[in-house]
């Protein structure tokens, strides 16, 4: 059985791969413009997901994954168009201006009722961004130590259930529109710490937040429902199976892991919060 199954699977695999990569039959007639794939990202798109806010370069984790998925679906680099959307535009009913949307959307069952997600392309740890002053003042990377900090987060992220359910801070967290506002609040001393996905937190602490520091991370494996990023599509989008096939292929061939290593390698070495 095994003997048969192995080659059969391999055959099946190569067929899909041929189908997907070869002439793009899976995606045929399913994209906004024939022969072209329109991908949405944030405005602006942040490091390390997209380098220099220029997804066309293919640099940055999500930009690289997007081109890899596109290639597996049969779209060459020249056949990919980028558009920008906010979160609200991504979930609003009605015609979309993108085939799929990549901006660190966490897959949740509630969201899946309204939109479609692909298989996950990244499983993120959550991390605590703070400043050196707070660390010096004695903040500890333990759950008990975190409770008494003044917390902030971006209101449209899955960091909020994380805050409410895991950290359960003693004072009401303050919530903001975007990363920039959270950083402003940290620098103004209005909040001690904020929750981000680990790569974003790393970038912010190193580059954006003056005197920024990472207190620790909640590793993805530790959580019952880890934060997994998926490609967002309109509910019932026929393209979903093609995207999923592409992601499966990338995962199993190890290409996805290679991209992750290339762009998100610094994410290791951050102390784990017990």
């Amino acid at each position, binding site marked *: 059985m095994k003997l048969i199954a192995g080659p059969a699977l391999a055959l099946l695999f190569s067929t899909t791969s041929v189908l997907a990569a070869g002439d793009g039959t899976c995606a045929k007639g399913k994209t906004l413009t024939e022969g072209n794939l329109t991908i949405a990202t944030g405005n602006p798109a942040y490091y390390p997901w997209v380098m220099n806010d220029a997804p066309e370069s293919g640099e940055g984790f999500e930009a690289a994954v997007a081109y890899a998925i596109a290639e597996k679906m049969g779209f060459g680099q020249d056949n990919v168009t980028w558009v920008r959307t906010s979160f609200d535009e991504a979930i609003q009913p009605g015609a979309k201006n993108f085939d799929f949307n990549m901006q660190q959307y966490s897959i949740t069952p509630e969201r899946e009722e309204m939109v479609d997600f692909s298989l996950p392309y990244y499983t993120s740890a959550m991390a605590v961004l703070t400043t050196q002053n707070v660390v010096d003042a004695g903040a500890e990377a333990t759950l008990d130590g975190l409770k008494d900090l003044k917390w902030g987060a971006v209101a449209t992220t899955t960091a909020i259930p994380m805050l409410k359910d895991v950290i359960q801070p003693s004072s009401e967290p*303050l*919530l903001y529109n975007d990363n920039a506002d959270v950083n402003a609040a940290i620098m103004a*001393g209005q909040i001690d710490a904020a929750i981000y996905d680990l790569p974003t937190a790393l970038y912010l602490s190193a580059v954006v937040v003056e005197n920024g520091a990472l207190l620790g991370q909640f590793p993805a494996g530790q959580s019952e429902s880890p934060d997994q990023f998926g490609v967002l599509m309109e509910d019932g989008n026929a393209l979903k199976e093609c995207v999923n096939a592409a992601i499966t292929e990338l995962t199993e061939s190890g290409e996805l892991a290679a991209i992750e290593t290339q762009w998100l390698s610094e994410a290791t070495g951050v102390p784990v919060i017990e």
Partner: protein
Amino acid sequence: MEETSLQKDSVEHSAATPTRREVYEAEVRRRSNRIALISVVSVTLAIFVLVPLAPGWEAVQRSFFNGRVFAETFPGLLEAFLMNVMIFAWSAPLIAITGLVIALCRDTRAPALFPLRLFGIAYTDIFRGLPVVLVIYIIGFGVPGLGLPRPWNSPYIWGTLALVLVYSAYVAEVIRSGIDSIHQSQRSAAASLGLSDQDTMRYVVLPQAIRNVVPANMNLFIALQKDVALLSFIGPVEIFRQAGVYKSLYANFTPYVGAALIFLALTIPATRYADYLMNKQNRART
């Protein structure tokens, strides 16, 4: 011929039966009621029958009028609305007092107080000229950024200050228009009795001015109740922000509709009441 005889008839019975004019007006009334009814029914039908026929209706309904999401988020929204009420409750008196002080600054006539007057003018010009949200951002993040220690860098304090600055500028202008609306003869009467300028303002002009502008100020405070939501930009989780959080969690806009309903439940009665006061005042004037 027939008509004339009919008229005669009704004239003869005029004590008990309606007059010609009453008959005519009753007919006009009946006709306008009929037209109003038909038009209301047809517009309602159009909304409730035609809109759902639109191809995207199902998607819109799922995103904006989702019963399940509504039921799950509404209690949380109500709770968050308490934050709006609280911010409003402490902002409104501060705004009223500041607005009055600024209005009085603008009305000073003594040359020694000219800087005060200049200040009043600059204040109202600047803060009426800026979007509320901009002032909230600049003050809410800017002032604490100077390095104030907690709790003095709280977004509640500085956000409230931003609201007070902007809204007191409007209130000041409304009060000033009220002061201007008091006829010069009232000041003359007070002066002829030997009252000082301050006493004239305090006992004669202001009480009347403020009463005159109650409806206009009510409208401002209704607007304030809505703008309290802008404080969410600098951190506080009030109803608008809470709705945004739910929107993100459920990828659904229904929480915004829930928040809108909560706002309306408060602002519609308040607006009706302000209009009622305004009409009453207009009637009293004529």
